[in-house]
């Protein structure tokens, strides 16, 4: 599965130039649907946690670190350890999941997501 920026993503000044149009006021309205990049990181992190048999009290909550594209997430396990996740919304993002300060996974985010959806 190839990864890309969020669905319906870019302003289309390029399209106007490419097709030689004068009036592109509508096309310039195209804007990102938000959130999918954050969701991907969160899904991947939870897939890893459950695969490793870690009981979750608070599932990871993710945010894009200013100015991006780095994404960080935090949560807790039922035995009180911190969950810390680092990844990004960029293509070829790497995913690092730490529990109680120990790295339990480091690898390509897309591999985690694809494996979870394949039989």
């Amino acid at each position, binding site marked *: 599965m190839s990864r*890309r920026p969020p669905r*319906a993503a870019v302003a289309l000044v390029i399209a106007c130039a490419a097709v030689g149009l004068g*009036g592109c006021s509508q096309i310039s309205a195209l804007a990102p649907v938000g959130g*999918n990049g954050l*969701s991907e990181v969160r899904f991947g992190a939870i*897939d890893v946690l*459950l695969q490793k048999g870690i009981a*979750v009290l608070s599932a990871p909550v993710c945010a894009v670190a200013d100015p991006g594209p780095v994404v960080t997430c935090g949560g807790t396990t039922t035995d009180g350890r911190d969950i810390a996740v680092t990844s990004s919304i960029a293509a070829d993002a790497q995913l690092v999941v730490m529990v109680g300060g120990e790295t339990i996974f480091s690898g390509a985010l897309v591999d985690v997501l694809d494996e979870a*959806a394949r*039989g």
Partner: protein
Amino acid sequence: MGVLSRRQFLAVVGGLAAAGALPRDQLAHALATPPPRAAIAEAPSTLSRTILQGAVQKGSYRGLVSGPGEPHLPRIDVLGRSAAAGRAASRRSLLYLAHLSDMHVIDAQSPGRIEPMIVQDHSAWGSAFHPQDPLSPHVIAAMTASISDLRYSPVTGAPMDAAVVTGDSADMHSHRELRWYIDLLDGRSVDPRTSDSFQGVQAWAEAVWAYRPVDPAGGAFGAYGFPTLPTLLDEAIARPVESVGLPAPWYTVYGNHETLLLGTFDLDTQLRALAVGGRKSYTLEATAAMALGGYAARTSALAQTLDAWGLELGLRPGFKAVPADPDRALFTQQEFMQEHFTTSDRPGPVGHGFTEHNLRSGETWWKADLSAHVRVFGLDTCNQVAGPDGAVPKNQFDWLESELATATRENRLAIVLSHHNSDTLENRAQRPGQDEVLIGAEEFIAMLVKYPVVVAWLNGHTHLNQILAHRAPAGGGFWEITTASCIDFPQQQQTVELVDNRDGTLSIFTTVVDHAADPVPGSGGDYLALASRSRELASNDWAETPLMRRGSPLDRNTELLLPAPFDLSTIADAALETQHLTARARILAHEGGLS
């Protein structure tokens, strides 16, 4: 019968019979007999089977296979502590719902579509064209069949009380799509045969950029390995699509696709004319110029007239002739609400959440009591100007807060419905001179957590399964439940059940629902075979990042715990039994139409 006395039971039956569900004696006999446990246990859901991507068939194209079922996973993020182990033995159902979202019913032959925009940037414009577009009515019918199969809760056996729809039901603002979606949920057939043979980009050799199932070679879809299916388009329009309809009353809200074109652009007069006209675009240049160029605002009336003549005479390049059809007219905001009154009272309700007050006032938000103890609030979070994401207008924010204060005084559990979720509530686009305050996610959530009666916020928009916990500073909070779509893989919806654990906690069970089609497409050309093919095609539509949309296991089949917001023992067992009898009577009437 349960806790109701015989006299009370007969009084309820008499009322339901008078309402026309079934003849009194027949109804009394049917309601006195519990629904068969085997039928409940065997109802297909992701508890017993999931659908996963399988091996490569050709190039990068993969088929689908059955995967193991997934049990409900308890989540205690909001509760903040372990749940009592014995809660399953004493629980009782307060409300059992179906949650549908982002159905995106598509009239794929319509000239009011802008499919060629994917040529400019496939990922950016992925929602303008999907390889499975002509099969969307079949998917909705298959999903409706699954919801009907799950008319009794797989958790408690309770009958379904209602269904809620959180927007993006009609894909391209077309009256025909609007009508199809209402009819399919109501249990009427729809006829996709709008021309003698399929007339659209997927049938035209010139549209080499599209997935053309007769001969996919030459474009990106062929290169990916999409299959040659010579009869697919003929089968898609060969016969009316029959739907069993939903087994419970359904309620709806606006999505961005019912507000703006493709959920993003303003609708101009040129596009309105194209939608009902007889020329359909198959090139990027023609689409960008005629549909999205800001044309009407920038071009003189004379030039528009000459262009319209050129289009009708076939002089404009990039268009092919299709049958003109006035039923494809783009609807207005008011017409969207109005159309929901053209329906039946079964499953009902007439208006599907919208009331005469909405039609008179133009207000696009509403409230309804789904039971004596659960109130639902349907918001319109769509931006009226531009962009797919939304926000909460201040007037709705204030209205909702006032209503939540009332619900708190009245001991009503509250469920909030909107199209947008907390990841997509930051669009504050306005026209010059407008000064409406649009409120984003942080402020909205901060208001909701002030009212413990708010237990759930159901939404959609991002075409994925996701469940987020929102905790109040002093403890407690609510669950935000985002349901996937019927267009993108995994083509899943959900059931949601509120359960009183009788220990001071409340559980919300979410169960993901696959539509009724098998993982592997058959060859019959019936609606289930076509829905199955749609799901397989969608799982390979790489531009839509399909696989991540299933969510994680904590976003699918779950038991979401939270503190009971008030003493739930004040809800009498007899009141719940009356509620369940009412729902069962509706289901019995629904079942009468299944045979």
